[in-house]
């Protein structure tokens, strides 16, 4: 019956899934964490939560993913969910123009509530419905460029690019953290602090760096 308290990871990254209601966030989550897709999925109420542990550059990374409700009603309640998030998957539906037009609103939401260094990937989901497409890849690409986001079209139904989208976000986060750690290490050695000091990069996430990564 006892639950093992899980410390079997080098990093824990909190990622939020955001975007309009009905774009497929929950199915992206279930595809990534359980390799499942459910046509009968009900709309998310409040927030749902799942994790998956994977390897990034030889490190064990636990992705803690928060799937938030897309409906306007829940914004006030869900703002707390952005706290501590180091990555975001901003999802729209390639068959619904409105969901793409709202990407800017979601970006504003992120900038208001999340860490300014948050890594953002924009995902144009439902790429399997190409015949119903209402947002061109070029439009999305140019928006992503102007806003400084990564971008990918995905399909939770066909398991297309889901893995890759998360991998990319996690790798970006990892590299940012590593860079910070290295910079901190350099400045630390420059000021004469003995090498091997544990560097605190916890500002990225409450539980990140449970094991000191820079002790060598």
């Amino acid at each position, binding site marked *: *019956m*006892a*639950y093992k*308290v*899980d410390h079997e990871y080098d990093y824990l990254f909190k990622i939020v899934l955001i975007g309009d209601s009905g774009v497929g966030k929950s199915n992206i989550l279930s595809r990534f964490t359980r390799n499942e897709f459910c*046509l*009968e*999925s*009900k*709309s998310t*109420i*409040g*927030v*749902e*939560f*799942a*994790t998956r542990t994977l390897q990034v550059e030889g490190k064990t990374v636990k992705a*803690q993913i928060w799937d938030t409700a897309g*409906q*306007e*009603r829940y914004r*006030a*309640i869900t703002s*707390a969910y952005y706290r501590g998030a180091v990555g975001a998957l901003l999802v729209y539906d390639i068959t619904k123009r409105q969901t793409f037009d709202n990407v800017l609103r979601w970006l504003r939401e992120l900038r208001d509530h999340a860490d300014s260094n948050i890594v953002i990937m924009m995902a144009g989901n439902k790429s399997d419905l190409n015949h119903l497409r209402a947002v061109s890849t070029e439009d999305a690409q140019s928006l992503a460029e102007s806003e400084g986001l990564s971008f990918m079209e995905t399909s939770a139904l066909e398991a297309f690019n889901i893995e890759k989208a998360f991998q990319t976000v996690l790798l970006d986060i990892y590299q940012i953290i590593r860079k910070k750690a290295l910079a901190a290490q350099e400045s630390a050695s420059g000021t004469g602090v003995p090498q091997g000091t544990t560097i605190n990069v916890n500002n990225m996430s409450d539980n990140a760096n449970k094991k000191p990564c820079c002790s060598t």
Partner: protein
Amino acid sequence: MAKERIPNWLNSSLWSTTPTVDDRLHCFSLSPTTTTTTAAAAVSEPIVQPTVPVSPPAAASRPQSTVTSQKYEFRDPIDKNSNNNSNDNDQNASPSGVSPDDISRQAQLLAELSKKVVNFRELRRIASQGIPDGAGIRSTVWKLLLGYLPPDHLQWSSELAKKRSEYKQFKEELLMNPTEITRKLEKSAVDDQSKSESSGLLSRSQVTHGEHPLSLGESSIWNQFFQDTEIIEQIDRDVKRTHPDMHFFSGDSPLAKSNQAAAEADSFFCFVELLSGFRDHFCKQLDNSTVGIRSTISRLSQFLKEHDEELWRHLEITTKVNPQFYAFRWITLLLTQEFNFADSLHIWDTLLSDPEGPLETLLRVCCAMLILVRTRLLAGDFTSNLKLLQNYPSSNISHLLYVANKLRSQASN
């Protein structure tokens, strides 16, 4: 225009259990969600048309004595097609084994329902222990518990007829084709004109700016009409998508259609009654007030602290599981997403019949849910606890309700 579109029923006394805030009417109609409405459809269960006629296992076990002594027909008196009462959809999920307890409770309920005037205290007492699935009486009992049906049998059929036609009228009012609305507007405009300009001058007909199908103005009735239609279609698709096994929502025969119309009206009013105690949770503007969802979640947390401080401390202080992360859904959906449909019905039997009222009862059941998995929670960290509470394990509902009931006795002693 916006004012005129508020239908009469929104101002009805049904809604006025709590002090009125102007925003409430508006915020309540903001974003329709289909999630809670489906369980409310259970109030219409007897007129579900099963696709395949099967002989219900429970029909055999129905105590004959009570049926023969029955004076009043407790079935939906208007709907003559509801003879397959015991064939309703919640049978699908219920085990065929009927316990002696169920049979005796069923007999008591049937006896209560067949009285000329139903004794509410008695009905609540029996129903709070759960309404047996077999007899197909849940729909009637719920209608009574929610106050949709009056206690006096003689009034049932007229009351139902009245409500159903009222509902039909609401629908016509609300979902009126804009052509009709503009025609009426034009007609009244012309009437006004002819009154004021009877001096013999040629009347000029006004060119309407706002009201035509291509108008994009936010207040345009056409624009509103298209938006409404889209929402209705979306609800339709979502209900069929998320409840593919419920025949109530499908079926195109004239019989099925007329049943659906009556059931829709009944469900609507029952839903209104049910939500009268919960609607503040759905009002964003009230989120930070003492009646809003946040405050209800805090009450649950407080309640847990009173009954099991160790568990409360571990959950909220040690593992930092904010009750919002799970209880928001528990409370707003009245647990319908935490349990399967048949189990949800049993929980709702208790929510609707407990004399303390649905909200108090719900908080007790939620607290019992936490206490029932306390060993696991106490051994868990943030991740495992949140996963457990967001995917609550299937449970023995009778036991859950028993524990919830005990929480009350402790509090009052």
